[in-house]
């Protein structure tokens, strides 16, 4: 099916118009908060659906290539869609549509407290700029849209700006994203200078002629820039602060989509702009990905704040995606393009899957936040009885993110495993060892992720409520449940019948790498590398359902006792069961804290205040067992101190004296005149 460019351009225009109308409408109706809220988010919903349509059309073969010379200098705004861009537009649409719809109900409680017009406008701007980032085709368009995306997301994060924690989170996010932007800017300018072109097509054509040293430098710079947006360790520190601080639908968008744009950038760098690079590029990404995956999930494991746990889990999944990209790069540098395409398919599939289930989880966390007014898991519990449908959706999300069959997370993690295991076809010992260790890292990650989400779901939803608020929780409205139901359904469909998605992914990665992936699939099974590995997600799901249904029937046929009696939990005969007897999130994570104490470096503080009269009576006991952030200790702390010291020195320049400033201007003018001669 060939979709001609007119259709594509129409879709693009409609999408941008919708976002524009949403932003404008939200701002114009600022006087009436409810109207502003509904207009802003409804148009965002429509725009996201159009983005989804645009992306699907792009995956089906449609392309765009449009340049508008006037808006930006040096080449204007250049937009284009190829399969990779279309795929990421689909990811944006898939997450943004449910999130915007959800926001219509969710933002009701911000009425009167915060600016809903600002939220609506910022959201529309955010979505539009993200879509345009993946469609950008020259450097300035990309950078301008990137910056717009960062600014819009900053305003969204700062929605609850009166909260001290949010203020700090916003500040860290602002600094990190602009540090990344600076790296991107320098990298882009170096590349543009070396290839004499600001167009991506120009870079692709001339990449081979750039000297290896400069290419390595550009790779490192762009890697740092895109990596900090993606949230890889150790550039991740903004993630666990910004994602919890933002409203839940914004967290869903940031975690589900925005950090994937860092992956988009890295994929472009590795396979498009810089051409085939030396083997250490792939190895470096693989190692960074493995470290991010393991450390991300370890930090998620000990966290009691539900949204921060989800944020760290995003770091973990970005690590997994990055491992796939690194593996693909390694395969390509060793001339195994089919395997490279396979690894890239695994990686991109995980991008889509993570977008779906992470946004589902964040929307669920938002529902919990709205019902119980707390993010602290230590105060939740028993919500499965009070919010039964949300519980089912959250459970589906948890099982999916733990990569368990028959849901979607399993398929992409299975594919990632297969591509890592196939590394034995490379015959370089160091690379083989690196891949072996990364297999171990991925396995450890998946085990820990399962444990982490048992904690997240089990402590929040099961057993008895641990606080008043949790005891009075109520199910959220249909407008908030419907998007969650849709995302949960997608988790199931993508897991059981991945055929359609795999076809698109296959064509995407073969376009990018230049060779079809080593993958055969039909509606029942997936085969990797010619019988190296095989899985049939459909039959697994069918068999499980059939068995689970037939066991009760078999029990009835054998005339077993089907009586059921309800009584209290067994507590060794004690008189009363309260929530204080339950396991808490901290206690659940305690074995992990002890086993991995080398990483967490917990700081134990025990203060006992005795009664003034006698040491045999205790007034209060205060116990703290917190994990120290090794990144602050090792990297950011010293860096902050260094910058402060430098800033103190530079401050001497700012004397406050107008005459000195006039002298500076004179000196600068003279120097420029000398240079310009």
């Amino acid at each position, binding site marked *: 099916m060939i979709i001609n460019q007119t259709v594509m351009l129409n879709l693009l225009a409609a999408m941008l118009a919708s976002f524009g109308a949403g932003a404008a409408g939200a701002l114009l109706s600022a006087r009436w908060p409810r109207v502003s809220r509904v207009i802003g988010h409804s148009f965002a919903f429509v725009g996201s659906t159009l983005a989804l349509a645009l992306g699907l059309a792009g995956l089906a073969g449609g392309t765009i290539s449009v340049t508008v010379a006037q808006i930006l200098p040096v080449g204007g705004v250049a937009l284009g869609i190829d399969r990779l861009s279309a795929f990421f537009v689909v990811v944006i649409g898939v997450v943004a549509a449910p999130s915007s719809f959800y926001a219509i109900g969710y933002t009701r409680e911000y009425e009167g407290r915060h600016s809903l017009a600002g939220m609506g406008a910022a959201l529309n701007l955010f979505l539009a700029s993200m879509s345009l980032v993946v469609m950008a085709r020259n450097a300035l368009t990309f950078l301008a849209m990137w910056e717009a995306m960062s600014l819009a997301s900053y305003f969204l994060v700062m929605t609850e700006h009166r909260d001290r924690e949010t203020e700090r989170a916003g500040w860290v996010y602002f600094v990190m994203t602009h540090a990344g932007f600076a790296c991107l800017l320098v990298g882009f300018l170096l590349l543009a200078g070396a290839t004499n072109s600001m167009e991506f097509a120009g870079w692709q054509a001339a990449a081979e002629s750039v000297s290896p040293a400069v290419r390595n430098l550009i790779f490192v710079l762009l890697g740092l820039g895109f990596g900090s947006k993606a949230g890889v360790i150790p550039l991740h520190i903004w993630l666990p602060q910004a994602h919890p601080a933002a409203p839940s639908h914004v967290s869903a968008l940031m975690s589900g989509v925005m950090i994937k744009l860092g992956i988009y950038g890295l994929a472009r760098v590795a396979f498009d702009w810089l051409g085939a690079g030396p083997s250490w590029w792939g190895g470096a990404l693989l190692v960074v990905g493995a470290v991010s995956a393991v450390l991300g999930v370890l930090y998620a494991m000990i966290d009691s704040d539900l949204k921060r746990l989800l944020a760290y889990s995003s770091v973990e999944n970005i690590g997994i995606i990055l491992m796939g990209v690194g593996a693909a790069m390694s395969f390509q540098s060793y001339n195994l393009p089919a395997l490279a395409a396979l690894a890239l398919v695994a990686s991109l599939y995980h991008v889509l899957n993570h977008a779906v289930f992470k946004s589902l989880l964040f929307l669920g966390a938002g529902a919990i936040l709205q019902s119980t007014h707390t993010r602290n898991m230590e105060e939740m*519990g028993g919500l*499965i009885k009070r919010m039964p449908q949300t519980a089912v959706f959250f459970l589906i999300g948890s*099982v999916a993110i*733990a990569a*368990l*069959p028959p849901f979607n997370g*399993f398929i992409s993690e*299975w594919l990632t*495993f*297969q591509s890592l*295991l196939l590394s*034995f076809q490379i015959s370089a*010992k160091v690379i*083989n060892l690196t891949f*072996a260790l990364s297999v*171990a890292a*991925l*396995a*450890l990650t998946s*085990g*820990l992720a*399962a*444990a982490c989400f*048992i904690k997240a779901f089990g402590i929040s*939803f*099961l*057993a008895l409520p641990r606080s008043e608020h949790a005891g009075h929780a109520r199910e959220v409205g249909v407008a908030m449940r419907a998007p969650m139901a849709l995302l949960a359904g997608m988790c199931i469909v993508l897991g059981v019948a991945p055929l359609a998605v795999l076809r698109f992914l296959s064509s995407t990665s073969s376009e990018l790498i230049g060779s079809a992936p080593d993958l055969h699939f039909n509606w029942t099974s997936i085969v990797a590398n010619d019988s*190296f*590995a*095989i*899985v*049939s997600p459909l*039959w*697994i799901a069918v*068999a*499980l359902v059939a*068995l689970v249904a037939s*066991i*009760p029937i078999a*029990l009835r046929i054998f005339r*077993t*006792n089907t*009586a059921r*009696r*309800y*009584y*209290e*939990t*067994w507590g060794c005969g004690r008189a009363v069961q309260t*929530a204080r*007897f*339950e*396991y808490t999130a901290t206690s*659940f*994570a*305690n*074995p*992990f804290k*002890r*086993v991995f104490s080398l990483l967490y470096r917990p700081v134990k503080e025990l203060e006992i205040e005795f009664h003034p009269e006698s040491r045999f009576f205790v007034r209060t006991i205060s116990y703290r067992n917190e994990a120290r952030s090794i990144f602050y200790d090792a990297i950011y702390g010293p860096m902050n101190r260094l910058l402060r010291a430098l800033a103190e020195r530079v401050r001497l320049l700012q004397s406050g004296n107008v005459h000195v400033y006039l002298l500076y201007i004179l000196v600068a003018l003279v120097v420029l005149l000398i240079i310009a001669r």
Partner: protein
Amino acid sequence: MTGRILIEVIQLLMVALGAPLLMGSVRKLKARLQGRRGPSVFQPYRDLRKLLAKEAVISENTSWIFRFTPYLVASVMLLSALLVPMLSTRTPLGFIGNIIVLMYLLLLATFFLALAGLDAGSAFGGMGSSREMIIAALAEPTVMIAIFAIALRVGSTSLDEIVRRGADDSLLLLNPGHLLAFVAFFIVALAETGRLPIDNPSTHLELTMIHEAMILEYSGRHLALIEWAAAMKLLLFLALLSNLFFPWGVASTLEPLPVAIAFAALVLKIGTLAAAVAILETSTAKLRLFRVPELLSGSFTLALLAVISFFFVR
């Protein structure tokens, strides 16, 4: 066609009906080693039959997850029984998944069992879930690296292929990587099925329980399903160990005679491994919980050495 269906049915019945017999045999052997006569080898069947006739007392704090988990866990074990090549390398349903799929299915069962442990709101259940998960998480890397070692030797992760090519290779046992991978996988099997020295399956002290603590709230038919599933898990792991690492005797066709020989060979191999488990359980004490990660890291090192040896011996 009928042969293919028949072999799957036989395999399913073998696992479903033979698992309690395996459990009974291990207990009987342990009793004999302890100098007592011990229960009959058919005792687990009697226990299960009795449990199916009792009522189920369910805690008021639980939710549907508590009632759903026993059925899911039993189903996962039955599905895994269809995947593992026990009698023949031509397992018709082998296309459902490779060894990685098998490991993740078992993780699915553990996931829901841990949730059920948290569901009743008792401290025992939470403790069991928490401990079970740290052990499962730390056993995962060993499993995957051992699989990597096997895949390196064979060039495939499909269970049928591994058994078939292993049977063709006459120098298998001389391969040091192979033996290292076997030891590592054996330790993981002990950890996953909750045997000594990681977890004592017959303890009464809640503070020493791991698997048992998660199922303290179960009674009646639910308990029967979970006990049955635990027995099936042990049988599956022993069958995997036997056929992946000592694949001789496994039939390569679906003819009756080779399959019968394969059955006898399997009984012999599983019997030997069960005896090894029983002897190990009788002669070692349970490890303190926070010494278990050391044991699992040791098994991980063995598996990694197996992989490295395959790289250098190629």
